[in-house]
Protein backbone atom coordinates (compact mmCIF):
# COMPACT_ATOMS: atom_id res chain seq x y z
CA UNK A 1 0.00 0.00 0.00
CA UNK A 2 1.40 3.33 -0.98
CA UNK A 3 1.97 6.10 1.51
CA UNK A 4 -0.47 8.56 -0.05
CA UNK A 5 -3.17 5.97 0.09
CA UNK A 6 -2.39 5.30 3.72
CA UNK A 7 -2.55 8.97 4.68
CA UNK A 8 -5.83 9.30 2.87
CA UNK A 9 -7.24 6.29 4.75
CA UNK A 10 -6.28 7.71 8.13
CA UNK A 11 -7.73 11.10 7.26
CA UNK A 12 -11.01 9.57 6.14
CA UNK A 13 -11.30 7.41 9.26
CA UNK A 14 -10.61 10.35 11.53
CA UNK A 15 -13.22 12.54 9.84
CA UNK A 16 -15.78 9.77 10.23
CA UNK A 17 -14.81 9.30 13.87
CA UNK A 18 -15.26 12.99 14.59
CA UNK A 19 -18.79 12.82 13.25
CA UNK A 20 -19.55 9.71 15.29
CA UNK A 21 -17.86 10.70 18.54
CA UNK A 22 -18.33 14.45 18.78
CA UNK A 23 -21.95 14.27 20.04
CA UNK A 24 -20.89 11.98 22.87
CA UNK A 25 -17.90 14.09 23.80
CA UNK A 26 -20.19 17.09 23.83
CA UNK A 27 -22.64 15.33 26.13
CA UNK A 28 -19.88 14.40 28.51
CA UNK A 29 -18.33 17.85 28.66
CA UNK A 30 -21.64 19.71 28.95
CA UNK A 31 -22.58 17.61 31.94
CA UNK A 32 -19.73 19.33 33.83
CA UNK A 33 -20.68 22.86 32.81
CA UNK A 34 -22.65 25.48 34.69
CA UNK A 35 -25.86 26.60 33.01
CA UNK A 36 -24.22 29.79 31.87
CA UNK A 37 -21.24 28.02 30.30
CA UNK A 38 -23.44 25.45 28.60
CA UNK A 39 -25.01 28.02 26.28
CA UNK A 40 -21.87 30.08 25.75
CA UNK A 41 -20.51 30.54 22.23
CA UNK A 42 -17.99 29.56 21.03
CA UNK A 43 -18.68 26.21 22.71
CA UNK A 44 -15.95 24.87 24.98
CA UNK A 45 -15.14 21.21 24.61
CA UNK A 46 -13.22 21.32 27.89
CA UNK A 47 -15.25 23.33 30.40
CA UNK A 48 -13.39 26.36 31.76
CA UNK A 49 -15.26 26.19 35.09
CA UNK A 50 -15.86 22.49 35.59
CA UNK A 51 -18.49 21.76 38.19
CA UNK A 52 -20.13 18.74 39.73
CA UNK A 53 -23.34 20.55 40.65
CA UNK A 54 -25.34 18.86 37.87
CA UNK A 55 -24.44 15.45 39.22
CA UNK A 56 -25.05 16.58 42.77
CA UNK A 57 -28.51 17.72 41.77
CA UNK A 58 -29.17 14.52 39.87
CA UNK A 59 -28.18 12.12 42.61
CA UNK A 60 -30.17 13.96 45.24
CA UNK A 61 -33.33 13.55 43.21
CA UNK A 62 -35.25 10.71 44.81
CA UNK A 63 -37.10 10.01 41.55
CA UNK A 64 -33.89 9.62 39.59
CA UNK A 65 -32.63 6.89 41.89
CA UNK A 66 -36.03 5.27 41.70
CA UNK A 67 -35.95 5.33 37.87
CA UNK A 68 -32.49 3.83 37.95
CA UNK A 69 -33.59 0.97 40.19
CA UNK A 70 -36.65 0.34 38.02
CA UNK A 71 -34.53 0.22 34.87
CA UNK A 72 -32.10 -2.21 36.45
CA UNK A 73 -34.84 -4.52 37.70
CA UNK A 74 -36.70 -4.59 34.40
CA UNK A 75 -33.63 -4.88 32.20
CA UNK A 76 -31.87 -7.59 34.16
CA UNK A 77 -34.89 -9.81 34.57
CA UNK A 78 -36.10 -9.47 31.00
CA UNK A 79 -32.59 -10.26 29.75
CA UNK A 80 -32.36 -13.33 31.94
CA UNK A 81 -35.70 -14.72 30.81
CA UNK A 82 -35.27 -14.00 27.14
CA UNK A 83 -31.85 -15.65 27.08
CA UNK A 84 -33.14 -18.81 28.74
CA UNK A 85 -36.24 -19.01 26.57
CA UNK A 86 -34.50 -18.19 23.30
CA UNK A 87 -31.90 -20.88 24.02
CA UNK A 88 -34.63 -23.47 24.21
CA UNK A 89 -36.51 -22.11 21.20
CA UNK A 90 -33.39 -21.74 19.07
CA UNK A 91 -32.24 -25.25 19.92
CA UNK A 92 -35.64 -26.67 19.11
CA UNK A 93 -35.82 -25.03 15.70
CA UNK A 94 -32.24 -25.93 14.92
CA UNK A 95 -32.25 -29.60 15.89
CA UNK A 96 -35.70 -31.06 16.15
CA UNK A 97 -37.65 -31.71 12.96
CA UNK A 98 -41.29 -30.89 13.30
CA UNK A 99 -44.10 -29.81 11.03
CA UNK A 100 -43.94 -26.12 10.17
CA UNK A 101 -40.38 -25.69 11.31
CA UNK A 102 -39.30 -23.61 8.33
CA UNK A 103 -42.41 -21.52 8.51
CA UNK A 104 -41.82 -20.87 12.19
CA UNK A 105 -38.25 -19.78 11.63
CA UNK A 106 -39.36 -17.47 8.81
CA UNK A 107 -42.09 -16.13 11.05
CA UNK A 108 -39.51 -15.17 13.66
CA UNK A 109 -37.83 -13.03 11.04
CA UNK A 110 -41.06 -11.52 9.73
CA UNK A 111 -42.18 -10.60 13.24
CA UNK A 112 -39.31 -8.10 13.15
CA UNK A 113 -41.30 -6.14 10.60
CA UNK A 114 -44.25 -5.45 12.82
CA UNK A 115 -44.00 -1.93 14.16
CA UNK A 116 -43.77 -2.17 17.92
CA UNK A 117 -46.77 0.15 18.08
CA UNK A 118 -48.87 -2.55 16.44
CA UNK A 119 -47.88 -4.90 19.25
CA UNK A 120 -48.30 -2.21 21.87
CA UNK A 121 -52.04 -1.76 21.35
CA UNK A 122 -53.16 -5.38 21.88
CA UNK A 123 -50.44 -5.97 24.47
CA UNK A 124 -51.69 -3.04 26.48
CA UNK A 125 -55.23 -4.46 26.51
CA UNK A 126 -53.94 -7.89 27.50
CA UNK A 127 -51.81 -6.49 30.32
CA UNK A 128 -54.77 -4.49 31.57
CA UNK A 129 -56.90 -7.62 31.54
CA UNK A 130 -54.42 -9.32 33.87
CA UNK A 131 -53.93 -6.19 35.97
CA UNK A 132 -50.29 -5.97 34.92
CA UNK A 133 -50.27 -2.35 33.79
CA UNK A 134 -47.89 -0.38 36.00
CA UNK A 135 -46.09 -3.45 37.26
CA UNK A 136 -42.59 -4.75 36.69
CA UNK A 137 -43.92 -8.06 35.44
CA UNK A 138 -45.98 -6.30 32.79
CA UNK A 139 -43.04 -4.42 31.34
CA UNK A 140 -40.74 -7.42 31.61
CA UNK A 141 -43.26 -9.51 29.67
CA UNK A 142 -43.47 -6.79 27.04
CA UNK A 143 -39.70 -6.71 26.57
CA UNK A 144 -39.50 -10.47 26.37
CA UNK A 145 -42.19 -10.47 23.65
CA UNK A 146 -40.07 -8.47 21.30
CA UNK A 147 -36.58 -9.59 22.13
CA UNK A 148 -37.47 -13.28 22.05
CA UNK A 149 -38.12 -13.71 18.29
CA UNK A 150 -34.88 -12.10 17.21
CA UNK A 151 -32.82 -13.81 19.92
CA UNK A 152 -34.23 -17.22 18.99
CA UNK A 153 -33.50 -16.53 15.35
CA UNK A 154 -29.93 -15.52 16.12
CA UNK A 155 -29.32 -18.50 18.37
CA UNK A 156 -30.85 -20.88 15.85
CA UNK A 157 -28.26 -19.63 13.37
CA UNK A 158 -25.56 -20.19 15.93
CA UNK A 159 -26.68 -23.70 16.87
CA UNK A 160 -26.80 -24.55 13.17
CA UNK A 161 -23.04 -24.05 12.97
CA UNK A 162 -22.35 -26.61 15.71
CA UNK A 163 -22.10 -30.10 14.15
CA UNK A 164 -24.85 -32.42 15.46
CA UNK A 165 -22.31 -35.28 15.54
CA UNK A 166 -20.95 -33.92 18.81
CA UNK A 167 -24.28 -34.30 20.57
CA UNK A 168 -24.95 -37.61 18.94
CA UNK A 169 -21.75 -39.08 20.27
CA UNK A 170 -22.58 -37.69 23.73
CA UNK A 171 -25.98 -39.34 23.48
CA UNK A 172 -24.34 -42.62 22.48
CA UNK A 173 -22.25 -42.31 25.61
CA UNK A 174 -25.39 -42.14 27.68
CA UNK A 175 -26.37 -38.47 27.85
CA UNK A 176 -30.01 -37.63 27.32
CA UNK A 177 -30.92 -34.88 24.89
CA UNK A 178 -31.09 -32.38 27.71
CA UNK A 179 -27.76 -33.55 29.07
CA UNK A 180 -26.15 -33.27 25.65
CA UNK A 181 -27.61 -29.80 25.21
CA UNK A 182 -26.41 -28.67 28.62
CA UNK A 183 -22.96 -30.29 28.51
CA UNK A 184 -22.02 -29.98 24.84
CA UNK A 185 -24.04 -27.38 22.98
CA UNK A 186 -24.27 -24.64 25.58
CA UNK A 187 -20.53 -24.40 26.36
CA UNK A 188 -19.74 -24.38 22.65
CA UNK A 189 -22.17 -21.58 21.96
CA UNK A 190 -20.88 -19.25 24.68
CA UNK A 191 -20.13 -16.41 22.21
CA UNK A 192 -23.60 -16.73 20.75
CA UNK A 193 -25.15 -16.62 24.21
CA UNK A 194 -23.07 -13.60 25.11
CA UNK A 195 -24.22 -11.70 22.07
CA UNK A 196 -27.86 -12.57 22.63
CA UNK A 197 -27.52 -11.40 26.22
CA UNK A 198 -26.10 -8.10 25.06
CA UNK A 199 -28.77 -7.75 22.44
CA UNK A 200 -31.65 -8.15 24.86
CA UNK A 201 -29.91 -6.06 27.50
CA UNK A 202 -29.46 -3.12 25.16
CA UNK A 203 -32.99 -3.48 23.88
CA UNK A 204 -34.56 -3.30 27.32
CA UNK A 205 -32.15 -0.68 28.63
CA UNK A 206 -33.02 1.89 26.00
CA UNK A 207 -36.65 1.08 25.25
CA UNK A 208 -38.91 4.10 25.36
CA UNK A 209 -42.33 3.51 23.81
CA UNK A 210 -43.48 0.59 25.97
CA UNK A 211 -41.99 2.03 29.12
CA UNK A 212 -43.93 5.21 28.51
CA UNK A 213 -47.24 3.47 27.79
CA UNK A 214 -47.15 0.72 30.42
CA UNK A 215 -45.57 2.51 33.37
CA UNK A 216 -48.00 5.34 34.01
CA UNK A 217 -47.22 5.80 37.67
CA UNK A 218 -44.32 8.19 38.27
CA UNK A 219 -42.76 5.81 40.78
CA UNK A 220 -42.66 2.98 38.26
CA UNK A 221 -41.10 4.78 35.32
CA UNK A 222 -37.78 3.77 33.86
CA UNK A 223 -34.91 6.08 32.96
CA UNK A 224 -36.08 6.53 29.37
CA UNK A 225 -39.65 7.43 30.22
CA UNK A 226 -38.67 9.48 33.24
CA UNK A 227 -36.26 11.77 31.45
CA UNK A 228 -38.97 14.12 30.26
CA UNK A 229 -40.64 14.46 33.67
CA UNK A 230 -37.44 15.03 35.55
CA UNK A 231 -35.40 17.20 33.25
CA UNK A 232 -37.38 18.65 30.40
CA UNK A 233 -40.36 19.90 32.32
CA UNK A 234 -39.09 20.95 35.70
CA UNK A 235 -35.72 22.41 34.89
CA UNK A 236 -34.71 23.17 31.37
CA UNK A 237 -30.98 23.09 31.81
CA UNK A 238 -28.58 21.55 29.32
CA UNK A 239 -26.07 20.71 32.02
CA UNK A 240 -28.60 18.73 34.03
CA UNK A 241 -30.02 17.07 30.96
CA UNK A 242 -26.57 15.98 29.84
CA UNK A 243 -25.68 14.78 33.34
CA UNK A 244 -28.80 12.62 33.22
CA UNK A 245 -27.77 11.33 29.80
CA UNK A 246 -24.22 10.59 30.94
CA UNK A 247 -25.34 8.76 34.06
CA UNK A 248 -27.73 6.79 31.88
CA UNK A 249 -25.11 5.87 29.27
CA UNK A 250 -22.11 5.15 31.50
CA UNK A 251 -23.16 1.64 32.61
CA UNK A 252 -23.54 0.64 28.98
CA UNK A 253 -20.12 2.09 28.20
CA UNK A 254 -18.53 0.10 31.01
CA UNK A 255 -20.29 -3.02 29.82
CA UNK A 256 -19.09 -2.20 26.33
CA UNK A 257 -15.44 -2.22 27.36
CA UNK A 258 -15.77 -5.78 28.63
CA UNK A 259 -17.92 -7.26 25.95
CA UNK A 260 -16.85 -5.30 22.90
CA UNK A 261 -15.61 -8.43 21.15
CA UNK A 262 -18.87 -10.27 21.63
CA UNK A 263 -20.88 -7.24 20.67
CA UNK A 264 -19.33 -7.37 17.22
CA UNK A 265 -20.14 -11.05 16.99
CA UNK A 266 -23.64 -10.39 18.24
CA UNK A 267 -24.48 -7.61 15.86
CA UNK A 268 -23.50 -9.74 12.93
CA UNK A 269 -24.63 -13.09 14.17
CA UNK A 270 -27.18 -14.51 11.81
CA UNK A 271 -26.09 -12.04 9.19
CA UNK A 272 -22.87 -13.92 8.47
CA UNK A 273 -23.88 -17.48 7.99
CA UNK A 274 -21.75 -19.95 6.18
Amino acid at each position, binding site marked *: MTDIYKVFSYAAIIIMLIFLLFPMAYMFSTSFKTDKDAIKLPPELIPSHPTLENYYWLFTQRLFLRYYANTLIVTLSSTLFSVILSCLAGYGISRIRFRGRNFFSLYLFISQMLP*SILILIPLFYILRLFNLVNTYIGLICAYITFSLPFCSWMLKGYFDTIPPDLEESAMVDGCGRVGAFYRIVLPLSAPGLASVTIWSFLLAWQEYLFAMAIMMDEEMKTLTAGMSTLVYVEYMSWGKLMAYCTAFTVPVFILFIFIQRYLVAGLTLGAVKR
Partner: protein
Amino acid sequence: MEFVGLYNYFKLVNDQYLYKALINTILFTLAGVAACFTFSLAAALLLNEKLKFRGVFRALFLLPWIVPSVVAAAIWMCLYSSSYGVLNYYLQQLGFISSPIEWLGNTETVLPALILISLWKFVPWYTVSILAGLQSIPEYLYEAAKIDGAGRIARFRYITLPSLKSIFVIILSLGFIWRWNHFDIVWLLTGGGPAFSSHLIVTYIYLTTFGMFEAGYGAAIAVFSVGCLLVFVAVLAREVIR
Protein backbone atom coordinates in the same frame (compact mmCIF):
# COMPACT_ATOMS: atom_id res chain seq x y z
CA MET B 1 -66.37 -2.33 21.81
CA GLU B 2 -68.41 -2.85 18.67
CA PHE B 3 -67.72 -4.49 15.34
CA VAL B 4 -67.39 -2.01 12.51
CA GLY B 5 -66.47 -4.27 9.61
CA LEU B 6 -64.15 -2.64 7.15
CA TYR B 7 -65.02 0.90 8.23
CA ASN B 8 -61.48 1.66 9.46
CA TYR B 9 -60.01 0.52 6.18
CA PHE B 10 -62.35 2.71 4.13
CA LYS B 11 -61.36 5.63 6.28
CA LEU B 12 -57.74 4.87 5.46
CA VAL B 13 -58.21 5.50 1.74
CA ASN B 14 -59.31 9.10 2.18
CA ASP B 15 -56.89 10.13 4.89
CA GLN B 16 -54.74 13.00 3.64
CA TYR B 17 -52.54 12.88 6.73
CA LEU B 18 -51.79 9.22 6.23
CA TYR B 19 -50.75 9.95 2.66
CA LYS B 20 -48.35 12.63 3.89
CA ALA B 21 -46.99 10.33 6.61
CA LEU B 22 -46.47 7.56 4.07
CA ILE B 23 -44.46 9.88 1.77
CA ASN B 24 -42.39 11.04 4.74
CA THR B 25 -41.75 7.48 5.86
CA ILE B 26 -40.62 6.43 2.39
CA LEU B 27 -38.31 9.45 2.11
CA PHE B 28 -36.93 8.98 5.60
CA THR B 29 -36.33 5.28 5.06
CA LEU B 30 -34.90 5.32 1.53
CA ALA B 31 -32.64 8.33 2.04
CA GLY B 32 -31.56 7.06 5.44
CA VAL B 33 -30.75 3.55 4.25
CA ALA B 34 -28.92 4.82 1.16
CA ALA B 35 -26.83 7.32 3.14
CA CYS B 36 -26.08 4.81 5.85
CA PHE B 37 -25.15 2.12 3.40
CA THR B 38 -22.72 4.31 1.45
CA PHE B 39 -21.09 5.69 4.59
CA SER B 40 -20.74 2.25 6.14
CA LEU B 41 -19.42 0.52 3.05
CA ALA B 42 -16.67 3.14 2.83
CA ALA B 43 -15.98 2.88 6.55
CA ALA B 44 -15.86 -0.92 6.50
CA LEU B 45 -13.46 -0.95 3.55
CA LEU B 46 -11.19 1.51 5.36
CA LEU B 47 -11.32 -0.42 8.61
CA ASN B 48 -10.46 -3.61 6.79
CA GLU B 49 -7.13 -2.18 5.57
CA LYS B 50 -4.03 -3.11 7.52
CA LEU B 51 -3.65 0.12 9.47
CA LYS B 52 -2.20 0.87 12.87
CA PHE B 53 -4.77 1.21 15.70
CA ARG B 54 -7.28 -0.69 13.58
CA GLY B 55 -8.70 -2.42 16.65
CA VAL B 56 -9.17 0.88 18.47
CA PHE B 57 -10.86 2.48 15.46
CA ARG B 58 -13.24 -0.43 15.16
CA ALA B 59 -14.20 -0.24 18.81
CA LEU B 60 -14.74 3.52 18.64
CA PHE B 61 -16.91 3.16 15.57
CA LEU B 62 -19.38 1.10 17.57
CA LEU B 63 -20.04 3.64 20.29
CA PRO B 64 -23.12 5.44 18.89
CA TRP B 65 -24.89 2.10 18.62
CA ILE B 66 -24.99 1.65 22.38
CA VAL B 67 -26.14 5.19 23.16
CA PRO B 68 -29.84 4.93 24.11
CA SER B 69 -32.19 6.61 21.63
CA VAL B 70 -33.59 9.01 24.19
CA VAL B 71 -30.05 10.13 24.98
CA ALA B 72 -29.28 10.51 21.29
CA ALA B 73 -32.40 12.65 20.93
CA ALA B 74 -31.35 14.87 23.84
CA ILE B 75 -27.80 15.34 22.56
CA TRP B 76 -28.88 16.21 19.04
CA MET B 77 -31.57 18.54 20.29
CA CYS B 78 -28.77 20.38 22.00
CA LEU B 79 -26.52 20.35 18.93
CA TYR B 80 -29.31 21.49 16.59
CA SER B 81 -30.57 24.25 18.85
CA SER B 82 -30.89 27.50 16.92
CA SER B 83 -29.62 30.22 19.23
CA TYR B 84 -26.77 28.47 21.04
CA GLY B 85 -26.44 25.22 19.10
CA VAL B 86 -23.00 24.04 18.14
CA LEU B 87 -23.95 23.06 14.61
CA ASN B 88 -25.28 26.51 13.73
CA TYR B 89 -22.26 28.15 15.30
CA TYR B 90 -19.71 26.16 13.30
CA LEU B 91 -21.64 26.41 10.06
CA GLN B 92 -21.73 30.19 10.52
CA GLN B 93 -18.04 30.31 11.30
CA LEU B 94 -17.27 28.34 8.16
CA GLY B 95 -19.50 30.65 6.15
CA PHE B 96 -22.02 28.08 4.95
CA ILE B 97 -24.99 29.90 6.45
CA SER B 98 -25.40 33.56 7.34
CA SER B 99 -27.90 33.25 10.19
CA PRO B 100 -28.84 30.41 12.55
CA ILE B 101 -31.32 27.90 11.20
CA GLU B 102 -34.02 26.29 13.31
CA TRP B 103 -33.15 22.80 12.05
CA LEU B 104 -35.98 20.97 13.76
CA GLY B 105 -38.54 23.75 13.49
CA ASN B 106 -38.46 24.21 9.76
CA THR B 107 -40.60 22.15 7.40
CA GLU B 108 -37.78 21.92 4.86
CA THR B 109 -34.89 20.98 7.14
CA VAL B 110 -36.61 18.79 9.69
CA LEU B 111 -36.58 15.55 7.72
CA PRO B 112 -32.91 15.80 6.62
CA ALA B 113 -31.98 16.69 10.20
CA LEU B 114 -33.70 13.56 11.48
CA ILE B 115 -32.09 11.47 8.76
CA LEU B 116 -28.68 12.69 9.92
CA ILE B 117 -29.41 11.53 13.47
CA SER B 118 -30.53 8.12 12.30
CA LEU B 119 -27.40 7.93 10.14
CA TRP B 120 -25.33 8.60 13.23
CA LYS B 121 -27.18 5.96 15.22
CA PHE B 122 -27.26 3.21 12.60
CA VAL B 123 -23.84 3.50 10.94
CA PRO B 124 -22.07 1.32 13.55
CA TRP B 125 -24.28 -1.67 13.01
CA TYR B 126 -24.05 -1.48 9.21
CA THR B 127 -20.28 -1.01 9.35
CA VAL B 128 -19.69 -3.93 11.66
CA SER B 129 -21.88 -6.21 9.58
CA ILE B 130 -20.12 -5.31 6.33
CA LEU B 131 -16.76 -5.63 8.07
CA ALA B 132 -17.62 -9.14 9.25
CA GLY B 133 -18.55 -9.98 5.68
CA LEU B 134 -15.26 -8.59 4.39
CA GLN B 135 -13.31 -10.67 6.87
CA SER B 136 -15.02 -13.83 5.72
CA ILE B 137 -13.67 -13.44 2.16
CA PRO B 138 -10.72 -15.81 1.80
CA GLU B 139 -7.43 -14.05 1.11
CA TYR B 140 -6.42 -16.48 -1.67
CA LEU B 141 -9.13 -15.10 -3.96
CA TYR B 142 -7.36 -11.75 -3.92
CA GLU B 143 -3.96 -13.37 -4.37
CA ALA B 144 -5.18 -15.31 -7.39
CA ALA B 145 -6.76 -12.20 -8.90
CA LYS B 146 -3.54 -10.25 -8.35
CA ILE B 147 -1.54 -12.88 -10.20
CA ASP B 148 -4.02 -12.70 -13.06
CA GLY B 149 -3.36 -8.97 -13.22
CA ALA B 150 -6.57 -7.60 -11.67
CA GLY B 151 -6.21 -4.07 -10.30
CA ARG B 152 -7.68 -2.68 -7.08
CA ILE B 153 -10.97 -1.71 -8.74
CA ALA B 154 -11.35 -4.98 -10.60
CA ARG B 155 -10.72 -6.94 -7.41
CA PHE B 156 -13.37 -4.89 -5.61
CA ARG B 157 -15.86 -5.30 -8.44
CA TYR B 158 -15.40 -9.02 -9.09
CA ILE B 159 -14.45 -10.41 -5.68
CA THR B 160 -15.54 -8.12 -2.87
CA LEU B 161 -18.99 -7.09 -4.09
CA PRO B 162 -20.22 -10.56 -5.11
CA SER B 163 -18.99 -12.07 -1.84
CA LEU B 164 -20.86 -9.49 0.19
CA LYS B 165 -24.17 -10.04 -1.56
CA SER B 166 -25.85 -12.08 1.18
CA ILE B 167 -24.75 -9.57 3.82
CA PHE B 168 -26.15 -6.74 1.73
CA VAL B 169 -29.54 -8.41 1.50
CA ILE B 170 -29.71 -8.88 5.26
CA ILE B 171 -28.53 -5.45 6.31
CA LEU B 172 -30.55 -3.61 3.70
CA SER B 173 -33.76 -5.38 4.60
CA LEU B 174 -33.23 -5.26 8.37
CA GLY B 175 -32.07 -1.65 8.15
CA PHE B 176 -35.11 -0.83 6.07
CA ILE B 177 -37.45 -2.48 8.55
CA TRP B 178 -35.93 -0.86 11.63
CA ARG B 179 -35.97 2.55 10.08
CA TRP B 180 -39.49 2.21 8.77
CA ASN B 181 -40.60 1.51 12.33
CA HIS B 182 -38.34 4.08 13.92
CA PHE B 183 -40.29 5.87 16.59
CA ASP B 184 -38.51 7.31 19.58
CA ILE B 185 -36.06 9.81 18.11
CA VAL B 186 -38.65 11.36 15.80
CA TRP B 187 -41.35 11.43 18.43
CA LEU B 188 -39.11 12.95 21.10
CA LEU B 189 -37.56 15.61 18.91
CA THR B 190 -40.43 16.87 16.78
CA GLY B 191 -43.55 14.95 17.73
CA GLY B 192 -44.32 14.96 14.00
CA GLY B 193 -44.16 18.72 13.66
CA PRO B 194 -43.79 21.39 12.45
CA ALA B 195 -47.06 21.30 10.51
CA PHE B 196 -47.04 17.52 10.13
CA SER B 197 -43.83 17.72 8.09
CA SER B 198 -42.00 15.01 10.03
CA HIS B 199 -44.84 12.67 10.91
CA LEU B 200 -43.97 9.11 9.99
CA ILE B 201 -46.49 6.29 9.86
CA VAL B 202 -45.46 5.05 13.30
CA THR B 203 -45.80 8.43 14.95
CA TYR B 204 -49.16 8.87 13.22
CA ILE B 205 -50.31 5.52 14.61
CA TYR B 206 -49.26 6.63 18.07
CA LEU B 207 -51.13 9.88 17.63
CA THR B 208 -54.36 8.22 16.47
CA THR B 209 -54.21 5.53 19.14
CA PHE B 210 -53.07 7.37 22.24
CA GLY B 211 -53.73 10.97 21.26
CA MET B 212 -57.14 10.64 19.62
CA PHE B 213 -58.08 7.32 21.27
CA GLU B 214 -58.97 5.63 18.00
CA ALA B 215 -57.24 2.33 18.67
CA GLY B 216 -59.16 0.57 15.89
CA TYR B 217 -58.09 3.04 13.27
CA GLY B 218 -54.53 3.01 14.60
CA ALA B 219 -54.42 -0.76 14.24
CA ALA B 220 -55.76 -0.50 10.68
CA ILE B 221 -52.95 1.92 9.78
CA ALA B 222 -50.45 -0.43 11.38
CA VAL B 223 -51.68 -3.33 9.28
CA PHE B 224 -51.47 -1.14 6.17
CA SER B 225 -47.92 -0.15 7.20
CA VAL B 226 -46.80 -3.76 7.53
CA GLY B 227 -48.30 -4.48 4.10
CA CYS B 228 -46.32 -1.64 2.48
CA LEU B 229 -43.19 -2.75 4.30
CA LEU B 230 -43.52 -6.33 3.06
CA VAL B 231 -43.84 -5.13 -0.52
CA PHE B 232 -40.80 -2.86 -0.21
CA VAL B 233 -38.63 -5.47 1.46
CA ALA B 234 -39.60 -8.11 -1.11
CA VAL B 235 -38.71 -5.79 -4.00
CA LEU B 236 -35.48 -4.78 -2.29
CA ALA B 237 -34.42 -8.36 -1.60
CA ARG B 238 -35.13 -9.39 -5.18
CA GLU B 239 -33.21 -6.47 -6.65
CA VAL B 240 -30.18 -7.15 -4.52
CA ILE B 241 -30.21 -10.87 -5.19
CA ARG B 242 -30.33 -10.22 -8.93
